[in-house]
């Protein structure tokens, strides 16, 4: 938690000023009961302001300052009333000022923290984001930071305000009458202990409630998203039962917390009532035994102060319970801030233009943090400039892992990967990735216009470049049919587009970069073969010097490639050759072929 306070540094001036201003407001609030008791004692009751015991020199000075005669009781009332209003106004102004400074400081800090954390996330290596998981990163970036910011704001505002009220109120109370302190001494521990007990019991349940709510949401989500399957198998009743269980759990847990919280209100009401009664009682007792220092005004002010002190204690207890929550959030943010990217780039910008575009030398790879067999083992593969290499193999055989090593999504565990004759580790990461156009298996579109989604690959692309890329990617036809063509907005990550349309847009995005190396990771799977064939033809025609590495599952898709690399089940590549040769040499390839062209018709 305290580590994060370094982000407060640029705003420390505001953060320090704010409580000082707050002290002004608190002083004002503490003065009010005094002014009020003056108003009642010397204005309404008409007690002697100069009386050594019941009088008040401060009140006298104030009246003298404003030139009001203490004997004109109406004037005294109005004078003290005006003072009260002035103090409220000033206090309110200071309170707002304090809110402004506190918000500026904490929101400023929040902004810096959020940006720092985001910059960090954007610098992490894929394996690290994998480990954090997407959902948890999103929560850390949003909820956790909000928690910490809110907490620091409430510290700035209340950590001073409540103790100030507490101390100030206590002092004032004791100044009124020392015996009032006894009451405070009795009421305080009772209140603190009870509140602490309730809150410490309730807080842990809150996270349980959150879990239960997540569960309710999960069941609804599954049923809304999977409605077809639920209906197709007529499992509505079962789903209702499943939901009922989650719903009931949620109800019971929430009820547990809310029932606990219902203790708070009576505890406060009763403690405060007892304290107030005690103050009046002591006042009465003092008068009875003839303590001349006791005044009606003092009793009335005393009741005000004691409520003030007790309320501030209540606030403090509330803040204390939020410390633990904010602390947990801070820890989660620090985990992000403290992680350094595992994959760091070198300084090389350009390799050797005459060497092979991509080369794998004795490459083995297993995912970081996993044990067990390697995904890739002993891979040797050279891809020449301008060549089209297809990669084929079973699900899970490591096709995606293989191409992921080129832009250094991961580093290989053994061996080396070369791009343009130089080890990928030597390259500056941005320069390396700039050479590559990578189209993911799972299309990732962003909530933006079609044009901006394509331009995403090259922000300064002209609209001609955009249309050209779309044409090559066979996307121009359907884009033109959209109501606003390239300006059409892609909502919800492309939910309105078909799988094939999304893939074509992603390919256009890669093409607009005019990459040296184009990687298509099974990104034509949703295209029908005619479209896929035209796409490949257009690619060849327009980007003949681009090295293309395409992963595919259909023989028809890979057949026209210059060479086809077959990844075996053990993650090795034993054969890499044109189709005809593979048909003679590779059992795996023949297997795949046979599965797709079973009867051998048309050959």
């Amino acid at each position, binding site marked *: 938690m305290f580590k994060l306070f370094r982000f407060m540094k640029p705003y420390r001036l505001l953060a320090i000023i704010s409580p000082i201003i707050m002290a002004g407001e608190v002083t004002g609030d503490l003065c009010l009961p005094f002014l009020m008791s003056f108003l009642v004692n010397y*204005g*309404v009751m*008409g007690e002697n302001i100069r009386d050594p015991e019941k009088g008040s020199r401060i009140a006298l000075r104030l009246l003298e300052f404003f030139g009001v005669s203490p004997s004109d009781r*109406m004037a005294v009332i109005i004078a003290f009333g005006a003072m009260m209003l002035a103090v409220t106004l000033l206090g*309110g102004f200071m*309170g*707002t000022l304090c*809110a402004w400074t506190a918000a500026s400081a904490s*929101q400023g800090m*929040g902004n810096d923290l*959020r940006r720092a954390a*985001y910059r960090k996330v*954007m610098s992490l290596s*894929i394996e690290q984001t994998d480990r954090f998981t*997407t959902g948890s*990163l*999103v929560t850390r970036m949003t909820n956790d930071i909000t928690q910490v910011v809110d907490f620091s704001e409430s510290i700035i505002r209340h950590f001073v305000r409540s103790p100030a009220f507490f101390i100030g109120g206590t002092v004032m109370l004791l100044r009124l009458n020392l015996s009032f302190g006894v009451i405070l001494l009795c009421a305080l521990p009772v209140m603190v202990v009870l509140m602490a007990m309730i809150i410490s019991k309730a807080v842990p349940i809150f996270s349980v*409630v959150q879990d239960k*709510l997540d569960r309710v949401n999960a069941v*609804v989500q*599954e*049923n809304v998203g999977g409605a*077809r*399957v639920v209906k*197709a*198998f*007529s499992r509505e009743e079962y789903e*209702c039962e499943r939901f*009922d269980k989650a719903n009931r759990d949620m109800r019971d847990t929430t*009820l547990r917390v*809310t029932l606990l*919280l*219902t203790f708070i*209100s009576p505890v406060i009401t009763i403690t405060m*009532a007892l304290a*107030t009664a005690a103050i009046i009682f002591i*006042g*009465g007792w003092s008068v009875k035994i003839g303590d*001349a220092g*006791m005044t009606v005004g003092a*009793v009335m002010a005393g009741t*005000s102060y004691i*409520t003030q002190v007790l309320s501030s204690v209540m606030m403090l207890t509330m803040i204390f319970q939020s410390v633990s929550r904010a602390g947990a959030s801070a820890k989660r943010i620090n985990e992000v801030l403290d992680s350094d990217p595992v994959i760091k780039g070198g300084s090389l910008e350009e390799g050797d233009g005459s060497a092979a575009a991509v080369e794998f030398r004795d490459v083995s790879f297993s995912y970081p943090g996993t044990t067990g067999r390697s995904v890739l083992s002993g891979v040797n593969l050279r891809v020449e400039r301008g060549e089209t290499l297809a990669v084929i*193999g079973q699900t*899970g055989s490591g096709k995606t892992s293989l191409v992921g090593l080129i832009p250094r*999504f991961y580093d290989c565990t053994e061996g080396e990967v070369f791009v343009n004759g130089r080890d990928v580790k030597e390259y500056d*990461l941005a320069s390396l*990735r*700039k050479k590559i156009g990578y189209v993911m298996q799972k299309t990732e579109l962003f*909530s933006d216009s079609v044009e901006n989604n394509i331009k995403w690959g090259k922000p300064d692309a002209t609209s001609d470049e955009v249309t050209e890329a779309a044409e090559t990617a066979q996307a121009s036809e359907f884009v033109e049919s959209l109501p606003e063509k390239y300006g059409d907005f892609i909502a919800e990550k492309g939910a309105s587009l*078909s799988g094939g349309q999304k893939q074509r847009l992603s390919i256009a995005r890669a093409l607009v970069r005019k990459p040296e190396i184009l990687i298509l990771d099974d990104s034509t*799977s949703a295209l*029908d*073969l*005619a479209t896929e*064939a035209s796409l490949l033809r257009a690619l060849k025609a327009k980007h003949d010097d681009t090295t293309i590495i395409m992963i595919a599952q259909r023989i*028809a898709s890979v057949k026209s490639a210059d060479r086809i690399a077959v990844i075996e089940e053990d993650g090795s590549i034993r054969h890499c050759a044109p189709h005809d040769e593979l048909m003679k040499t590779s059992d795996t390839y023949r297997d795949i072929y046979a*599965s*797709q*062209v079973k009867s051998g018709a048309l050959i």
Partner: protein
Amino acid sequence: MAEKNERQPARVDFRPGRGGPMNARVNGEKPKAMLPTLARLFRYIGRSRIVVIAVVLLTVTVTILEIYGPKLQQQAIDTFSLVKNADGTSRLTVDFDLLVKKLITLVAINLAAGLISFASGRMGARLAQKTVYLMRRELFEKITRLPIGYTDTHKHGDIMSRMTNDVDNVSTAISQSLTTLISALLTLIGSLVMMLSYSWIMTVVAMVTIPLTVFVSSRLAKFMRKYYVANQVLLGRLNGQVEESVTGYRTVVAYGREDAEVGKFGGISSEYRKSSIKARVWGSVMGPVMNFLGNLQYVLIAATGGYLFLNGRLESVGAIQAMLQYSKHFTRPINMIANQYASVLTALAGAERLFEMLDSKEETDEGRLTVSPEDIRGDIEFKNVDFGYIPEKPVLKDLNLSIKAGQKIAIVGATGSGKTTVVNLLTRFYETDGGRITIDGYDITDLPIETLRNTIAIVLQDTVLFSDTIRNNIKYGKPDAGDEAVRAAAHTANADSFIDRLPDGYDTQLTESGGNLSAGQRQLLSISRAVLADPRILILDEATSSVDTRTEMHIQQAMVALMKNRTSLIIAHRLSTIRDADVIVVLRGGRIVESGSHEELLAAGGEYYSLYRNQFAGIAT
């Protein structure tokens, strides 16, 4: 001193899963038809009539006790009195016995108020939770009865937010706003009566500030709402940015867009900072302003009281003190009513959305034929079927298709040609616009929906798995299946080898929607599910497109066995998947343009032939 020393504690509102305390008024929505919605909502509460009445009665009692409190305090203070001494000075005396009596009553009344509000708080909490629970249950049951068209055309996020936020808002309105409003109104009236009993002049003076309070607080609330809405919108954008860039992180990295994303995020974040500060400052103005107005009232009362007292028109100082106390009870309810009004409006708007959903048309299930799914042979016939998702855009036009029991029929065609629509109609996910569909000669609308669907098993391209164990996911279509049957089904679908490799085997718990499995593995599970369901009619809608071809080959072998003796409908764009079908139907623009066996269609040299050439163009040469 108007608000801060309030004896009544601030309502502790830290219900989980909510944002700031302003949440209720953030939207500032307005319901469309307030009265009917309100009436319907009251019918809901009517289900727990006794509890509601009890809570209301208890609230009334507490309010009366609270109103009586200051009077007692005043009476206690009135036991002090100034006695003129013989020398002209004055001396304070006290009627101690009376004081003690008054204090005991004061404590007793507060004790009672505390306990009663405790009791009503607990009843209210139970009521709220019960209402939420019932509403959610009703909504969920409704969801399961809504036609697919509903979930297809409504944003899933919207449906989710109805289940959570709207239900929460409504229940808060019922459990809290109701009692708060009652207590606020009573306090207002009670305080007014009490004040009048002391002095009507002071009461009138006290009321001077009320219009001012109402005016200022409503204006301020408007401002706050504006900034809070702006703030929420920015927060949404901020979260959206994080979500998109983190989920699509590989793409971001691959395209070297990290800096651009950081810049974009920084822009939104800074904007959010500015708007947050504004929202918070405006939010914090309300307190001081109300304080000032409260103190203004206080001073006005004190001055008037003092004046009256000095002129002998008021007999005790305690009366002034009591007036001052009551004036606090006067400002607070007005604030409360203003606040509650906003959250009641939000709740009503939420309730309207809930009712709209509850009123949506359900799936029609009027089939009365009693046929057992086991007795169905599986003859399917589409007769002159017309259909469009929206009336202006027909998808199927006068479709005629006849499938004999046990036949394997494949439907091919380009995207948008209506392949999936055929399935949607056969399963009655959607209803035809014209023509009829029969199974074994029974019109499918004459069959109970459950019978119809129990004769059909369906495997979709987007696999749907549930956050449950693998076993339960396979058993989904046949809950009473034994472990052996589950294993056998998994074996048939080639899923057993990967399941056995999982640490917990069949008891492996799937994370939400099966995120811990690969697409291929998920598909194998959903195929196992169909295998186990053992239906008369099997529908494979692009079922194997995310499985690699070798795995697909294995599945296909299983499928051949599975499809034996049942009617199978296969939708695929991989022609390799469908060449063994008995009949291949080629759809274009919602009509059947060709049908026949693979060989027949190839020989015909039509649409199918060109599709096929396309598919195997590379191989053929």
